[in-house]
């Protein structure tokens, strides 16, 4: 396959940045999207040019670091995949492909396609945990009975990999899908109850302070989320938050 790539290039956080066109030939449909970029980068290095910087680690859809907005969609056109699991067979010979970094004020660009997602870490630190004493006498988790449906829903919420595709897809750069997954994961389990009120208040406050937008319920996040995190989590977070604020 022969492709035209339109890639966002930006030297540093301060640089203005712009889209640059690259022609690439001999792309196999079996390559993953990142392998295709590896080939491009090899070319660039051989020509003495600066390779395209992008985040990646596991390349199997679990670390959530490969943040790329491909042809107007987070992680490209396929559903339920991260960009490392996207294959070139999803494109046609002669296609033009736009590759851009996540766009959100709370996710500033560091270089080319790499953005700073530490805002998510700070939201997690604000309450995405439970406090337990692990000094040797931890009881077996299975000794606390949990309703099957709650256990399943908590597990589903816990599959969020913190990739940020929800923020990138949302027209408001809202982080509600991510935060609601992290809130739900604990709100549904008995171990999460003790700190439930503070957790939701603190995490939402941190989310707002980071400068993420408000939810308009467009549902774009749910469609683009590689892990299929459901909007029901946002409704749950809204309930948790509202009842926590009325409690005072």
């Amino acid at each position: 396959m022969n492709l035209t790539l339109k890639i966002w290039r930006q030297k540093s956080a301060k640089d203005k940045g712009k889209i640059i066109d690259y022609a690439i030939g001999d792309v196999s449909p079996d390559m993953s999207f990142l392998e295709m970029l590896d080939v491009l980068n090899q070319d660039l290095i051989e020509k003495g040019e600066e390779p395209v910087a992008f985040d990646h680690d596991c390349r199997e859809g679990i670390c959530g670091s490969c943040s790329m907005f491909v042809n107007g969609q987070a992680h490209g056109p396929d559903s339920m995949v991260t960009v490392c699991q996207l294959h070139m067979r999803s494109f046609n010979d002669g296609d033009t492909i736009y590759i851009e970094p996540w766009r959100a004020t709370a996710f500033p660009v560091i270089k080319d396609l790499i953005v700073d997602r530490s805002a998510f870490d700070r939201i997690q630190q604000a309450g995405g945990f439970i406090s337990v004493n692990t000094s040797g006498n931890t009881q077996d988790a299975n000794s606390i009975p949990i309703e099957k449906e709650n256990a399943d829903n908590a597990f589903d919420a816990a599959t969020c990999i913190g990739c940020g595709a929800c923020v990138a897809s949302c027209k408001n750069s809202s982080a509600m899908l991510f935060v609601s997954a992290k809130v739900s994961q604990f709100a549904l389990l008995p171990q999460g109850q003790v700190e439930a009120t503070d957790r939701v208040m603190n995490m939402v406050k941190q989310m707002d302070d980071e400068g993420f937008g408000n939810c308009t319920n467009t549902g774009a996040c749910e469609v683009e989320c590689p892990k299929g995190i459901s909007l029901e989590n946002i409704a749950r977070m809204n309930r948790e938050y509202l009842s926590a604020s009325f409690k005072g």
Partner: protein
Amino acid sequence: MSGILNSSIGRKFAMALSALFLMVFLLQHFAINILSVFSPDTFNDASHFMGTFWAVQYLLQPVLIFGVIFHFLMGFVLELKNNKARRVSYAKSNGGANSSWMSRNMLLTGLVVLAFMVLHFIDFWIPEINIKYIQGDMSGLMDPNVAESGFRYYEELVHKFQNPLRVGAYVLSFVLLSLHLLHGFNSAFQSVGANNKYTKGLKGFSKVYAIGIPLGFVFIALFHHFNH
């Protein structure tokens, strides 16, 4: 509880409450207006009751005015904040792949509804307030000195809908209101945290409401335009 409007979820909650109130009001407004098609006398009686009953005039009307103003001001606030959350936009964005046009254009459809409301206030509300509270005529009669002249409400409605431009503006606005509600109805429930086993059924009902009610208003306008 303090400062709930300072949080993203609190703002959305307040937005949804004002919207839910507006949707109940719209239903009630429709129920009265549709009477004008079937029975001008009943329409007149209902209008007179609404226009003079103290609880409607001094309790519900102020709440409604507050609700409308709050709703569109908060709409602007949210839009402003959301724009700030993404200062650099994408060179290529394919919103249609993951969300409906209605959900992405609530401000646009809302602004057309706002423009309509200005026209609507000039047409009906301001003249009524003028007659009732400035001229002090609470009789509701066409000629306050002649009891037999009958109520004025139906005549005024018919008269206003003679102008094809006004009817055109009404039709257009209600189409946009329908688009606003096609997203907004369900959105409001999600905002207050209601997403459960009833949500699917509610989605069906929301289509009936969001298309049916605006269409009903369009029907009333066209009916009076072509029948008099």
